[in-house]
């Protein structure tokens, strides 16, 4: 009897502690469960690409976790619009997973593969990606089977005049990723301060000598900084065609010689004497707004117009690209091998390629990201979506797009830059 009372009193005490400990997390857990929706695994195996109607049927009710860079309000707002539209028309719930670096997600997927997560066991359905990250995923087999060319709207993509939709940093996409938008190296500056914008790297040097401390580029390995260096490389290389081949020690030395001479001459006239470099192009944009720098860099030809609309740059800012061409590339969306909702991800990728979505994306007042489609081949109604008056700060004329060097050149250049200027 005494033993029983002893045990029961202990049990009562213990249960009181446990209730206290568990109550709060459980309460919040329950509340949170109502908020977030968990991914619903696809009930059937991936449907055959030929049967698009079946794909759309399967996709209904699924949730797509779209991991996309979220550092810009216009882009976030556009993705919100996409989410509303696919919900209304296809019954798909699109969750924008806000990331600041796609490499984080690649690492996560790689860790999931190492942990043995199966085909439905991932946390990412769709990923906004290009360049090195794509090459890494392709190399390590982290991608789902090819799907892009089978998408109904892919037929409108301009693969002829925009070859970067098929070769990502000279790496063939093989249908593993679906093109989304175009990017090209663009510069912007206040007309009041910069009357004649430099039209090549050589002119940039002249400009920097005349206006010391008023221009710079982001620190390598930020991709804007790397692209600035690549642009200089292409302009100063002895033979630019060698750059689309994988790099080796001899070609590297031969092609980059003039580049380092140029940079050595340029740096003393840059911001902070070339001893310190800004973290990113976005930080530079803020400095252009404040007047500390006079030239900003972007990949979005309509960036300046966006900033003017958002009241971060004065209305007298103009954009331009070098008259002989600047480096351009395409950015894509792709599916990892372990995406749980593959059907819905394909439907979303297809929607992103639709003329409606592409036109809205190209609209300056929304995002201003150039389209991957061949507008001339579209129907008259769709073509009308793409026309619009020129906005302040918007790019006046287009220039040739220079091909990116092979991805292997990037690593070599970055390493050498860090060795020379990075410490």
């Amino acid at each position: 009897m005494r033993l029983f009372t002893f045990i029961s009193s202990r049990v009562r005490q213990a249960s009181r502690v446990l209730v206290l400990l568990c109550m709060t997390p459980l309460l919040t857990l329950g509340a949170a469960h109502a908020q977030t929706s968990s991914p619903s695994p696809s009930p059937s195996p991936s449907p055959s690409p030929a049967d698009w109607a079946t794909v759309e049927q399967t996709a209904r009710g699924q949730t797509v976790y779209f991991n996309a860079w979220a550092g810009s309000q216009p882009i976030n707002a556009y993705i919100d619009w996409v989410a509303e539209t696919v919900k209304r028309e296809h019954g798909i719930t699109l969750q924008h997973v806000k990331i600041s670096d796609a490499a984080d997600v690649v690492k996560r997927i790689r860790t999931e593969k190492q942990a043995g997560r199966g085909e439905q066991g991932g946390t990412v359905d769709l990923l906004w990606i290009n360049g090195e990250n794509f090459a890494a995923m392709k190399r390590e087999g982290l991608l789902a089977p090819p799907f892009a060319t089978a998408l109904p709207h892919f037929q409108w993509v301009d693969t002829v005049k925009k070859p970067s939709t098929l070769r990502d940093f000279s790496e063939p996409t093989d249908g593993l990723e679906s093109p989304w938008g175009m990017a090209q190296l663009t510069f912007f500056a206040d007309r009041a301060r910069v009357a004649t914008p430099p039209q090549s790297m050589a002119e940039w040097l002249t400009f920097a000598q005349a206006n010391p401390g008023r221009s710079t580029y982001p620190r390598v390995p930020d991709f804007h900084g790397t692209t600035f260096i690549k642009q200089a490389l292409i302009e100063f290389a002895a033979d630019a065609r060698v750059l689309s081949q994988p790099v080796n020690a001899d070609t590297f030395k031969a092609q980059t010689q003039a580049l380092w001479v140029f940079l050595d001459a340029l740096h003393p006239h840059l911001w902070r004497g070339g001893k310190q470099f800004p973290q990113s192009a976005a930080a530079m944009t803020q400095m252009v707004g404040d007047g500390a720098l006079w030239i900003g860099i972007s990949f979005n030809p309509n960036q300046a117009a966006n900033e003017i609309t958002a009241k971060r740059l004065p209305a007298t800012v103009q954009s331009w690209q070098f008259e002989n061409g600047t480096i351009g590339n395409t950015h894509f969306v792709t599916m990892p091998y372990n995406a749980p909702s593959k059907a819905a991800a394909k439907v979303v990728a297809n929607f992103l390629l639709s003329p409606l979505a592409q036109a809205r994306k190209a609209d300056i007042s929304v995002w201003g990201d150039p389209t991957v489609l061949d507008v001339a081949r579209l129907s008259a109604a769709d073509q009308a979506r793409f026309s619009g008056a020129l906005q302040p700060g918007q790019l006046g004329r287009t220039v040739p797009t220079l091909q990116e060097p092979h991805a292997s050149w990037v690593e070599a250049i970055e390493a050498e830059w860090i060795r020379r200027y990075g410490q």
Partner: protein
Amino acid sequence: MLLANLSLTARRSVSHRLAVIFFALIVSVPIAWALFAVAGQALDSAALHALWQQPQARSALALSVWTALVSGVLAWLTAARLLAIGFVHQTLMRWMQHLPALLATPHAAMAIALVLWLSPSGWLLRLVSPTLTGFQSPPDWSTTQDPWGLGLILALWLKEVPFLLWIGATQLRRDDIRRRWQSEYGLAQTLGYPPSAAFARVVWPQLALTLRWPLLAVVAYGLGVVDMALILGPTTPPTFAVLSWQWLGDANVAQQAMGAVAAGVLTGCVALMAALIMYGRATRWLLVRGTMAVVQWPPLTTPVSLATSAHGVPPRWTVRAKRYAHSYGLWAALLVAYLLSWFALAVGSVSGLWPFPHVWPAQWTMGAWQQVGRSTATLWNTFALALASATFCMAWCMAWLELAPRAWHVALRPWLLLPMVLPAIVWVIGLYSVALFVRLEGQWLGLIGAHAVMVLPYVLLALEPAYQSVDARQGAVAASLGRSRWAYLFAVKWPQLMPALMAAWAIGFAVSVAQYLPTLYVGAGRFDTVTTEAVTLAANGQRTFMSAYAALQMLLPIAIFWLASVMGRPRQFARSAS
């Protein structure tokens, strides 16, 4: 008969021991597991070799150590002086009321505010241009992101002083120690030592020894900080922690391996600091004796003497002003620095276009706050996560401090304080591996667990002094009155400790709100908190969004601190007639 003769302590209870073991395990297992997972990645000899070859690694490491040490030393000296002032003038209690607001300011917010003030296009220069300096454009000066890391040191210094001060003040408030130190301090004065010297020679050596763990935490934070270094620190080369973080985030596997090894190197640095600070005789001498000069000079006069002089005639106003400055100047300077920072954040969050010499923005915009208003899911996530992890940690700490025998507590304490001391990046790798294994990544429970691990040391540090200062004989009295242990806890001990409990809970809440890397990794990017949004937007360098989210990061903990101070208010007894 045999039963009656058994030693009483051995029989204290089996259930008691089981409970202690249970509580020890639920916390130490995740910690040990996480460390084990990291150790595997960090001990990669090929990557270590590659790291050594990196040209920027060595200067980055030197930079990290330099900034962490200098800011740690400055914070130590300032906190020592402030504690001396507070003790002699008995203003510590008043200061404690303001400290939570200072503590709640997130590190990133402080960094952003300093940039707003100190950068070449910052407010300081705007105020004096073009009238005094003649600048029409921001000069090309290295005031922030400077190669010596001075801006980073300043930000770290400003953020760490309130922390050390708060821990010191908590120690000085402990009932058991307080009376002893007060009497020793009074005794020293009767032996002829002026007040500040009495404090420096008698109280400070004892107090300083208890502040070593917090100092280690401060230096370790300085070594491992990423977000502040990104905003304020040099970029070429960046600090070692930033470098490690950038490598870990690279797509290339070799770079990631280097990043993991770099995190291991940082851990090694912290371990070295720990050994020096906690066990090194030389550092102990430096920390106590070496700072005595700063602690006692300029000499402090007790409040009564501030307004008098030797001859009974009130001293000249210059003398009085000097005394007031010595006594209150430092605290006032600290408060002013924080006020200016908050003001800068407030203005920055609504500033549109702001070309250089203008003192005020040319255009104002509410865009950032509208965006904040739209992100209610984010707010709810942050709040629920912080509430769950802080409450769990507090419940655990209360159970542990109540049940664990001293030997167990002493043995486990270094492990429990580890999440505070090791760089966050190390934990993130480890906790993510654990979460993957138990399939809790991207789930609420896993995320709460990860936050709980990071929050626990702070709650423990905050709760321990008060909890252990309770007179043990009170428990004996309650038992002798026939009331069970639970009745004693609920009716006597915990109500008495309410201020400390509430403060610890609020601190846990604030720490959880400020977590970035754990939410990002263990949450598999599924959960947006105010901090993840802030950092993502800060990466874009947009002043308005950065400031608005930094302000939001601050408002949540401040609200909780206010709530905690209200709930923890000591009882007001009715005024009696006699």
